[in-house]
């Protein structure tokens, strides 16, 4: 059902937790099941220095959050805020159709965390 990458990111998720003194906090939920992901970020030198997640969701949602934070760290703020569900899906080697909303949620949570950081920075 799932690719090896999904299984790996689900069994050993990267970046679990909450960034201390985060610059931005974001959340997104999957309207179909009500599950949700929270992402916190720290920005430095125009880049995403740190990104962490907490997910109440399925295995695909956990793997997606792990992947989206992995993709974001080290990228320029601009680049990171453009990471899409498609990018997450591609990096994960795809997800079953009913699970694509779970990847959308991860991308949405990251985008909202970065947007929050931008607002706070003024």
């Amino acid at each position, binding site marked *: 059902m799932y690719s090896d990458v999904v299984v790996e990111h689900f069994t050993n998720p990267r970046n679990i937790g909450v960034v201390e003194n985060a610059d931005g906090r974001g959340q997104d939920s999957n309207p*179909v099941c009500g599950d949700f*992901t929270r992402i916190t970020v720290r920005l430095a030198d125009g880049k995403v220095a740190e990104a962490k997640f907490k997910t*109440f969701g*399925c*295995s695909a949602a956990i793997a997606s959050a792990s992947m989206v934070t992995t993709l974001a760290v080290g990228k320029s703020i601009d680049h990171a805020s453009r990471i899409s569900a498609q990018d997450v899906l591609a990096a994960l080697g795809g997800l079953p159709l009913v699970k694509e909303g779970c990847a959308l949620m991860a991308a949405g949570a990251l985008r909202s965390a970065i947007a929050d950081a931008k607002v706070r920075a003024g």
Partner: protein
Amino acid sequence: MRRIYLDHAATTPVDPRVAEAMAAVYRDAPGNPSSIHDEGRQARALMDTARERVAAAIGAEPSEIVFTSGGTEADNLAVRGTVAALRHKGDHVVTTAIEHHAVLDTVSELEREQNVRLTVLPVDRYGRVDPEDVREAITARTVLVSVMHANNEIGTIEPIAEIGRICRERNVVFHSDAVQTVGALEVDVRRLPVDLLSLNAHKFYGPKGVGALYVRKGTPFARIQTGGGQERDRRAGTENVAGIVAMGAALEIATRERAIESPRLARLRDLLLSGVRDAIDDVVVNGHPTERLPNNASLCVRGVQGESLIVALDLAGIAASSGAACTTGSLEPSHVLLAIGLSRELAQGSLRLTLGRATTDEDVDVVLGELPRIVSRLRAASPVA
């Protein structure tokens, strides 16, 4: 990796003795039971024996057994057949919020498309229907009451003897989906006031794709499938001879072994539940504490979403499920867990472990080793716990 299968409520593996009986039919009995030649008569004889076995297991007459393609068809036949047969007398159906979709979706389609009036009764927090609610729901227009014998998700056994008595008093046809109980509990229609009872072979170590509807003699009934006159004109279509023979063999074995097997399963299930309670904080055990199927353990783990739990267990070699197997493709929380009053979030964390013949003490130990580790790993990533 050795797999541990704990999803017997979804389906049971075919008993090797049953598989052999089934293979023998494919090998040696090629006839159509409606044919009059020797091959046909031989197939007919095999089917007759199977019908006698199924009937004997539930205390019925062979003529009261209608073979179907499984539990879903039996439920459809019971509900649609009764409503069609009694349309001139009334238009009201009473059922419960925790029925299988084979009943719930059927009655709501009848409501939408045929203006049938529907009363869906609530259940208490253990999943039990109050027979008095059934009494109050019945009106002069009521043609059918349908209440399952035991729930497939949470294992709660319903008071169908009492409900059946109320239906008798009010002269209303009573159907019970006994798919989860036949083979595991004593079900005897001589004592149980039911008119229609659904059975499914693959829940008692028979093959998938064959089931039966018990139809008490004299119950108003209309067929829903047109074609040949098989099953005394109650279910058209050439019979699944091998499946029917296998169903007869499987039910005979299950009935014979039940007195030892059901208490054995209940003991293992209790070990599992007490181990889980000891090792994991904040778990809710669903269903009735005593009135429950012997092999069912239904839990909700706070802070953890059910699918992630199932996938993690699967990767660890343990097959479990979250709610009903039939709806695992959907992301909606289970209608049963919502009906017993759980929040959406808690209902999202459901885990159903259903034990079976192959389950051993060692399997329970393995689960009790893996599950707490998995739960704490998932909780570490959860914003809730």
